[in-house]
């Protein structure tokens, strides 16, 4: 079955983005991974993100190789345990049009992706894209394998495209609370599987202790949004 959405490969770390129909933005297929952030860490001279900073983050969410990914370690592949401003800085490294999504953008994307049932072919189609990072390819397939396993899903029939993107079952993600982009909430679910409930469940929004700085939570990371994708 053919993927009904346009997918692009972002040039900096070569992970996939899904263009959200009827909008002017694309969302990353997966939350940002540690492998992606390691590109930034190998490039930046910003002392805020030094060796000590990263090793401290790894204490709370140890690094796993793609080979070691299991149902229990899948969340550790993503870059988490961040503060809000760190997530903003990191997302800005990708480029001028790359940022954290707003709550409205994230919510709209979820709504659209909920309209389509999950299918294995979608992942294979993306994995076959030229130029994709080899680890992105491996990760997409491994995540799909885990998500579609019996122990993860209730029934294959109820899986949605949004599940494949880990928007309903993965980590929490920083989003801007509103258009002012000076405060944050977290979106997403830490549950292994969540049925579709419409309209957008309030349970998908986590208020943080500080909307200004966010808070370091073991499984709180972020997902990239690219506005006006080329």
């Amino acid at each position, binding site marked *: 079955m053919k993927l009904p959405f346009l997918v692009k490969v972002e*040039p900096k770390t070569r992970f996939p983005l899904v263009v959200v129909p009827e909008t002017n933005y694309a969302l990353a297929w997966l939350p940002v991974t540690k*492998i992606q952030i390691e*590109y930034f860490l*190998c490039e930046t001279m910003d002392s805020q993100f030094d*060796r000590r900073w*990263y*090793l401290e983050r790894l204490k709370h969410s140890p690094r796993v190789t793609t*080979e070691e990914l299991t149902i229990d370690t899948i969340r550790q592949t993503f870059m988490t345990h961040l503060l809000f401003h760190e997530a903003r800085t990191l997302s800005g490294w990708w480029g001028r049009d790359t940022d954290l999504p707003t709550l409205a953008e994230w919510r709209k994307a979820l709504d659209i992706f909920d309209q389509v049932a999950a299918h294995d072919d979608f992942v294979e189609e993306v994995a076959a894209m030229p130029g994709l990072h080899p*680890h992105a390819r491996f990760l997409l397939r491994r995540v799909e394998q885990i998500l579609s396993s019996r122990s993860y899903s209730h029934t294959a029939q109820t899986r949605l495209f949004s599940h494949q993107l880990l928007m309903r079952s993965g980590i929490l993600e920083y989003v801007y609370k509103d258009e002012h982009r000076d405060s944050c909430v977290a979106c997403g679910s830490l549950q292994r599987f969540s049925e579709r409930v419409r309209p957008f469940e309030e349970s998908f929004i986590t208020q943080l202790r500080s909307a200004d700085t966010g808070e370091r939570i073991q499984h709180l990371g972020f997902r990239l949004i690219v506005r006006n994708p080329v």
Partner: protein
Amino acid sequence: MVIMCPYCLEMHEFRQTDICSNCGQQLPKKYLAAALQGSPICLGTFGLKSHGKTAFLSNLLLAAESLSKVALNAFPQAIDSYTSRMLLKWNAMDQSGEINLGETLLGENPLKERPTPLLLLLSNFPSGQSHIFVTYDLAGEVLDKAGSEPEHVRALHNVNTIWFIISLSDLMKERKTGHSMRDLFDVYEEAMEKLHISIKGKNILVVFTKADKLLKTIDDSELPRLPSEVYAYLEDDSYEYEFIKEKPKASLKQLNEENYWTYFRKMQEISEILRDFTNDYVSGGGAFLAMAQSYDAQVMFTINSAYGEEPEGGKLPRKAHPKRILDALIWAIELGKAGRPNQGREVALIVPMTIDGHGVANQDIIMRFYQSLAAHGEHVATYSVGHLASAYSPGTAPVQMPSLPRLPLVGPILDRLKAGTVVVLLADDKMPLDLGDFVNSPLLDRLLVVTTHREMLNAWLRHRAILQNEGDVEPIVSSFLNQLSAARPQE
């Protein structure tokens, strides 16, 4: 895609940009497109002042322009404005018979700066093949400074073929001043040594210029007598470009695929004759050949005359009649194909982030690895673990590796390397955090991990070595490269 910037001569990633991140120069789009199709043929002239380097080079490009009349669909294109300007200038001189080369091409570049290359795309010559030529013309003055300021000859470090431009008549006259062919090699060797550039296995094309002088003064006892075969060869040039320009295409002998190889075989014969001649009669010629051989350099010879006769007062008595100018271009193509210097793979030498003198985190050990790899003809760039940009670009020795407080990561470095790059990772007391990501990667076929800590070497590393002392470096490198060479045919 990693390609060589023709302006700063360093390898860079040009992904979604045509600006070199190192020197800030904008690369011509045609160059980028052509370089993506195949490695450019890099040529560099090296010779004493007034030995005819620039005259030869200018006529070479004009000769390339005339090819469209004798080789089907062949055509050259200047791919940057600088080369276009130079071609226009030389064409004008050719039309008027006025010789005013002025300074060398370096004239537009102060000596302290790197020279601007000529960028030429030659399509469909020989039949069906296209080549991009990056040519550096170094001023004769550069040689005087090469020893003290070797940066001037850095342009030669990436070249496939070094053209030693020698006017035999001038060289013989200069004997009294002590100049000989051997001196030329000495200067070159010294400069390359200072730049830590290996000359092992480079192609050297000796271009004897101003052949017209040798033809005219054949009875001059000061000058060596050219062998009769060479004399005849110079007189009978079917592809002399002035001749080609004047004649209709139908009356010209076509340089088709078959004729091309016949022509090339004759060039090889002449090269052998000139080799013997150099050995026997040219001042310092025997020593030159012996020194080149000691570096396993392939030496070829060609002879030509840029104008056919000597200009007087900046004006030729009649229009230029260059002799056998095209030969050097054909040599460049054929030596470029053999590509002995660049046959060396690209190697990324990744060293510990902290150089504390222990184990492999030792400056001397790092230099030994670099030198050993370079001596095998490999093109080595040096990186620090955790730092995406190379600390030393390909072909430059890591004379002083910095200690950088970075993260022990190699994935981003490995990912950005050109496909097929061989990797030598010197691991100190900790393996990079992300090395495990490559457990099932094809990269393992060309990754060597060297450490002093046996317990760190995982069984899944296909190429691994324990370093016990500095004497182990060469055997480790040789063994690894031999294994890679043995595996090549199966790839």
